[in-house]
């Protein structure tokens, strides 16, 4: 495992192009495009203000930079460095900007969710979509880029509009049976749309592409409901994480519950392996410690060594009791992710912030539990292999695979703390984002491993 030098970035804006060739980073009001392999700067663009949002187009030819405060969006071309495009939303304001899947349209959501403006880069044409709903996930494009689902609110009722992205033709428009729609998400095969209600009511609605209601699922009533939702890459399973600290898995044929994953505070499952991160601080003798030693040891004191130990059952997982009187209590399953091969599901329960749970989807049971020393910030699956990377806001990178678990010290200077991470689409490298820096971590590919052998 190799690490690159530390690069600067701001606002955690760092994206790899969809084709995997370029790395775009934002530093204040500058956009820097580098070659992923050499990290050499290929292009440098200067925007009008500090960049708040940045996004690659699907064909990796354009980069969108949004400056929400000024209501501005600037687009840059890689092929023609002197080409430019500037979209000004004017006084209406801007809260969100994104590419359409074809990479030729930009969808801007105005302030107060008054409308969604669709700008075409081909024709300069503008179209408006009124009444978008301000919610968790109001817009979702299908994986193949053909359709867009948009949540709407009209006359105190929730609607979903389906658009054909090709020409923004409204394909379907239907009312949903929700109290307060919270999000829409397409299944990866683009045929089923999952719609879920806000946390006040546990309700998932599944609509076919043609607007038919396929099924409704509700696990319980009168309690805080759904917190997160995830489709398996094969569209076979729909995982629903809720405030009752459980994940429910629905199947794609009957849309009934297949199983339920509990997140208990005491793990007794004999089939699960519990990895516990153990920190080993360098022992410092207090008596014979001079100032010089202090200085030299300063860096090592921060960089404590850690390793995983397999705990014997039963294991007590640290639980933080949430403050239930406040809004959005820190309890329940907030993030879930399926591995690319559909075999594993990683989940995180918010009141057990230090723990990541890995479930085996073939056995439909708990496979591994990673107990970290600090709260898990982010975890993501390798897009090619069953490999999970996670970070906890310290100078370490943690990797899990069915073979085992490893903790890697990021050898960057100056207290580099991994806040977030992103896999390269090839799965060979990993982008680690600190507060103001970033660092690339190159995994050992199989050829290299063969060479080593």
């Amino acid at each position, binding site marked *: 495992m190799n690490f690159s030098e530390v690069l600067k970035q701001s606002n955690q804006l760092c994206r790899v192009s969809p084709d995997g060739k370029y790395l775009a980073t934002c530093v204040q009001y500058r956009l820097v495009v580098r070659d992923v392999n050499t990290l050499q700067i290929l292009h440098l663009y200067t925007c009008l203000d500090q960049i708040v949002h940045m996004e690659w187009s699907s064909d990796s030819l354009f980069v969108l930079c949004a400056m929400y405060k000024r209501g501005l969006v600037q687009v840059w071309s890689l092929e023609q460095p002197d*080409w430019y495009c500037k979209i000004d*939303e004017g006084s209406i304001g801007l809260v969100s900007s994104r590419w359409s899947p074809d990479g030729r349209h930009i969808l801007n959501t105005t302030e107060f969710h*008054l409308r969604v403006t669709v700008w075409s880069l081909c024709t300069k044409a503008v179209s408006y979509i009124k009444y978008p709903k301000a919610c968790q996930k109001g817009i979702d494009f299908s994986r193949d880029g*053909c359709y867009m689902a948009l949540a709407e609110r009209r006359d*105190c009722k929730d609607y979903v509009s389906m658009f054909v992205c090709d020409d923004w033709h409204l394909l379907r428009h239907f009312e949903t049976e929700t109290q307060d729609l919270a999000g829409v998400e397409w299944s990866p095969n*683009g*045929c089923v749309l999952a719609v879920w209600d806000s946390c006040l009511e546990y309700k998932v609605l599944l609509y076919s592409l043609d607007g038919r209601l396929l099924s409704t699922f509700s696990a319980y009533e009168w309690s805080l409901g759904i917190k997160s939702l995830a489709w398996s890459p094969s569209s076979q399973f729909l995982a629903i994480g809720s405030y009752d600290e459980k994940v429910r898995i629905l199947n794609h044929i009957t849309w009934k519950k297949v199983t339920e994953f509990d997140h208990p505070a005491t793990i007794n499952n004999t089939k699960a392996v519990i990895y516990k991160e153990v920190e080993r601080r360098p022992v410092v003798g207090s008596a014979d410690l001079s100032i010089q030693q202090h200085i030299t040891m300063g860096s090592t004191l921060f960089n404590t060594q850690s390793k995983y130990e397999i705990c014997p059952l039963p294991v007590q997982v640290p639980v933080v009791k949430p403050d239930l009187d406040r809004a959005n209590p820190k309890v329940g399953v907030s993030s879930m992710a399926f591995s690319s091969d559909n075999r594993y599901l990683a989940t995180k329960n918010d009141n057990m912030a230090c723990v990541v749970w890995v479930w085996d989807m073939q056995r439909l049971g708990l496979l591994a539990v990673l107990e970290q020393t600090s709260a898990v910030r982010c975890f993501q699956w390798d897009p090619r292999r069953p490999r999970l990377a996670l970070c906890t806001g310290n100078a370490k990178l943690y990797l899990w695979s069915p073979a085992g678990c490893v903790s890697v010290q990021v050898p960057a200077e100056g207290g580099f703390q991994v806040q977030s991470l992103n896999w390269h689409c090839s799965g060979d490298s990993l982008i680690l984002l600190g507060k103001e820096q970033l660092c690339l971590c190159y995994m050992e590919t199989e050829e290299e491993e063969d060479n080593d052998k």
Partner: protein
Amino acid sequence: MEDWWTTATIEPSIENHEISGIARLMMSPSRHHKNLPTMHSSTMPLSKSSYNVLSAFCTEDNVPQCISYINQEMDSLGFSSACIEASSPEGSGGLNTVPALNGMYELLQMQRRSQRSLQEQETESLKISSALEHLQITNSRLKDQLELSKREKSGLHEAERQLQLKIKTLQNCLKTEKDEVQKLQSIIASRASQYNHDTKRKERESTKLKERLNQLLVDKRDKKLAIDVLNYLGRADGKRSQWKTGKVEARHEGEMYKSLLSDYEGRQRALMLENAELKKVLQQMKREMVSILSPSPRKPCSSSRGDRVEDSLEQAGSDRDKEVGDCSRETLDQSCDHAREQSCEHAREQLTNSIRQQWRRLKSHMERLDSQALLVQQSQQRAGKELVPRQIHEEEMERMRLEVQQCKDFIQTQQQLLQTLLTKCVKSLVDQRQQFNSPCYDDETAALLNDCYTLEEKERLKEEWRLFDEQRRNFERERKNFTKAAIRLGHEKKAFEEDRASWHKNQFLNITPFVDRKRHSASETPRALSTSSEPEMRIPSTPARLTKSRTYAAFSTPKAAPVAGMPSTADLYRTLRLIPDSSSSSRGSSKRGSWQEFNNFHSREDPRVRSRDRYGGGDCCSIFSLGSEETASPEDTLQ
């Protein structure tokens, strides 16, 4: 009369005083008032003591009256009194004794009976009284209990009343709570509806505001709202954009349905595949079941014992099922074919039905097998535990016996061969030796010969050793005799010494003028004399002993330890005339000692004697030499 008296005297002694008193008191009143007004004897003295003659019931004068009175009494009591009466007219003392005694006896009997019954009644009454007491006690106890339970009951009643009161209050509370809950619920509902209404209103307001804002922005024709592009881009797919027409709409619909259809088709295909797989599994299971359940004659020979058991079981048990099974198999095969060709409803049903049937059979069969296995296990537990080991054991034993036999045979033949060879060799060697006496024979034969000789020699030596042992035992016996004799001699000598001492003393005392001191030292003198005299006695013997100390050591047996006053062995020998004199004693004494000592002694003293002994000596000498030269080379003794 005499009988009466005796009984009268005996009566009080036997009976209880009080009882007799009571009895007489009860009897006496009627007697006085009716028939004996003239009798001056009072009842009290009579009852007090019947010895009193004056106050007696019967006196010399009133015998007839008495008799008549008694007769009457007897009559009234129902006894036969005639006999007494009959004899009465003659004399005053003419009492017919036999009936009188009979009557008396009967009376006595009656008395005794009545006494017994009285006693019984008394004990009865005692018993009853005690029972009564007991009953009274129990009664009082029960009364207490009753009281207690009554009190308890009242307490419980009180508690119940209180509880009921509590229940009532609680029910009231519940009612009020329920009311409150209802009220709250209604409040909540109203609030919720109000909230909903409010939110809706607010939302409407907000939408209105949004609308207005939108309107305003649109109306304003915001100059800023603009896109500034250097040059237009081509579409990502390279096509040109199309006009929005109905055609396009239809195309979109079509595409949508196409994608949906393809998805469904894919899903159906997957399901079909899965179905086919499951069917295959089902069919395979079916086939295997059939093959297991039907007794096939071509069962593989390599099947294990369990399989064989199963086979036999199957053959035994499933004869009646055979037909059914066969027909079911047929239908199954048919259904399988059907299923393969056309997955129609009928075929499927058939398949599942036959599977179910087979499964049932398999289950029953398994159950039967289970029971059988259990039985077998039990029987094995009972007897079979040692069965296999014993078999193995026996086999092993047989094998070992055979082996032993073989070994024995082998050894025998070897021995025979060896014997023949040996005899041959010995013969030839002897011949050779006799005839040639030259070193012409080879080493091997020499070694063999040597061996033979040594063997022979050993045999002979053994024989001699045995003889020697016997001799030694004889010697031992003799020595024991000697020691015994010596002890006896010692005793005799002691006695003799004492005799002599006493004689000396007497003589001395007779001679001495200290007669007056005789009494004082009578007890002490013998000792003083002996101590003083003994050294003198011993002096002549000590030199001899000193000179012969060595030979003496050789004889040191625990019994023959030198006790004061015991004669030395040398003396003993001298006295027994075994040793001619002290100068030649060494040779003679050592002859009977242990040969080891003898050896050492002679080797130091004079070798000539030894050699003379050896050559000139008889049997015993040869034995000695043998013993001494056991470790010597055989060549010496060989000659």
